[in-house]
């Protein structure tokens, strides 16, 4: 063939091309190198800064991080918020998914739009609007309440942005539901409640697990919205790390970050195992 010089390779065999392999490799290095450097330097035995020159192995910054009561408190706050957010998101998300899957009702396209809106609008807009809402309602004062109740603001904010994601995941799962199962159950005398409890919910289980893990990670990760809705006495882990970073760069932050990265890795591994196939969404 006359022009076939460039097309020796089979079509769509890009994974075999060394140029593309190189791009993939460099991208992976670009994405992972900063995190790996951070983890390595969390073990660096250096007094100040500590992020430039390697001065030997130590775990003292982990001890320091665990001894930092404010940091531990922020971490416990973050975990508490994430757990409550996950529970609320699973409940609200499952209900939203069933609502949109099951019923025909007026203004449905508008409702669907509003449900997916928290996923698409810029985080800072949501943070600002919730901060103004809480201050108008006088809810900022909840920061002075006793421990778990002072986190109400942040938990409400997290649930508001997390449950639409959960709903989206569960709704995908609902699409594979076989309606004949339900009809059979009704023919055999099941009540509406029994249909939901014994037929639909068991079918949704993998979706619910995936949605729960997503809500947990989203809540644990969030900085911007928490930054706007938290008070001086209610600090989460990312907000605490942020104030430490503004103050100075210490190996202690690296140690704390490494712990959080490991938690995220474990959760992702769990999610992959639960879904049986490692697709990230």
């Amino acid at each position, binding site marked *: *063939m006359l*022009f*076939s*010089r460039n*097309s020796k390779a089979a*079509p*769509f*065999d890009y*994974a075999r091309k060394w140029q*593309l*392999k190189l791009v*993939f490799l460099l991208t992976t290095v*670009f*994405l992972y*190198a*900063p*995190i790996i450097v*951070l983890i390595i*330097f969390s073990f660096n035995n250096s007094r100040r800064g500590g992020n430039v020159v390697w001065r030997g192995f130590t775990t003292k910054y982990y001890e320091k991080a665990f001894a930092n009561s404010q940091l531990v408190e922020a971490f416990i706050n973050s975990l508490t918020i994430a757990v409550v957010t996950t529970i609320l998101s699973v409940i*609200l998300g499952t*209900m939203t998914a*069933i*609502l949109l899957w*099951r*019923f*025909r*009702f007026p203004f449905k396209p508008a409702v669907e739009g*509003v*449900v997916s809106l928290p996923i*698409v*609008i*810029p985080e*800072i*807009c*949501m943070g*600002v*609007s*919730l*901060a*103004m*809402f809480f201050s108008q309602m006088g809810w900022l004062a909840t920061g002075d309440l006793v421990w778990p109740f002072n986190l109400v603001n942040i938990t*409400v904010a997290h*649930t*508001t942005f997390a*449950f639409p994601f959960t709903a989206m995941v569960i709704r995908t799962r609902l699409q594979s539901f076989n309606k004949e199962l339900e009809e059979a159950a009704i023919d055999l005398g099941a009540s*509406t409640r029994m249909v939901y409890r014994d037929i639909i919910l068991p079918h949704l289980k993998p979706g619910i697990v995936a949605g729960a893990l997503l809500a947990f990670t989203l809540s*644990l*990760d969030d*900085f*911007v919205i928490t930054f706007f809705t938290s008070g001086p006495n209610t600090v989460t882990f990312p907000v605490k*790390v942020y104030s430490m*970073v503004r103050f100075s*760069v210490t190996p202690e932050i690296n140690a704390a*970050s490494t712990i959080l990265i490991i938690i*995220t890795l474990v959760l*992702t591994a769990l999610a992959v195992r639960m879904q049986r*196939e*490692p*697709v*990230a969404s």
Partner: protein
Amino acid sequence: MDNWRRSPLTFAFFSLPTLGWLFIFFLFPLAIVWQYSFGENTSIVDVEFTGTLNNYARIFQPEILVLLWRTLWMSTISTVICLSVGYLVAMVIASASPRAKPWLLLLIMLPFWTNLLIRTYSLLNILGTRGRLNQALQWIWESTHSLLQLVGLEGLMAASYKPLTFLGTPFGVVFGLVYIMLPFSVLPIYAALERIDKSCLEASLDLGAGQVRTFFKVLVPMTMGGLITAAIITFVPTLGQFLTPDLLGRGQVDMIANVIERQFKKANDWPFGSALSLFLLYITFILLAIKSIHDVRQSRRVV
């Protein structure tokens, strides 16, 4: 699907808590922002809602316009880089063996699951004056210099490497934006590449087009839908990024989100902050509208 009238109680059970939550904690707060955007500060704590358009007019002051322009071009450059690199990465994943595919995808998506703050913070060590990037550049500089010395051309460049400043420059911020957003842009392009009919590529190659021509004239047009989705889900969050310009820009490369934050934390000018937030929201809506118009047209063409 059931009509809600057939089982109003079940419908109420599912709709009241969920839609109620969204109304109280999502729509109502947005309405408050909207109301404030027409308000005026009468004292440090009081705001009077006078219906003024002054807050919106202030967006077009030169200082703010400079920031908007910078936000726009930095987001555009970051999105273009993410899409170009993301496309190549997606091509590799989409044409890998079925067994390797999910793992390659996971490899690219895993950083996306890592905390955003930690990822941005980790870049401080890379981009600092004594950071890894400068160390790497210094190594390249010095080895080039000694190579030139061997052939007696060392006069071409100075012997010592002068570290470059990345933090507090647009380069540093764009680097950070690309770092954060790259995994996002890969996924929709990968999904589009998975769906295409590979025999079209074969046909193009058989009919005499080279690989490069096939890429631009066949592959890219066929995956346009995925590219547009990728562009929007990369561009929109980039526009509203607060953390990246804050930590990597060192207050010298502020983007619009930093100005919004300042109105609420330091300047205490809620009406202006509200107007800016809504402006950002409106831009998001316009972009989403363009996307859905494109989707509708596309589905009509197929039918």
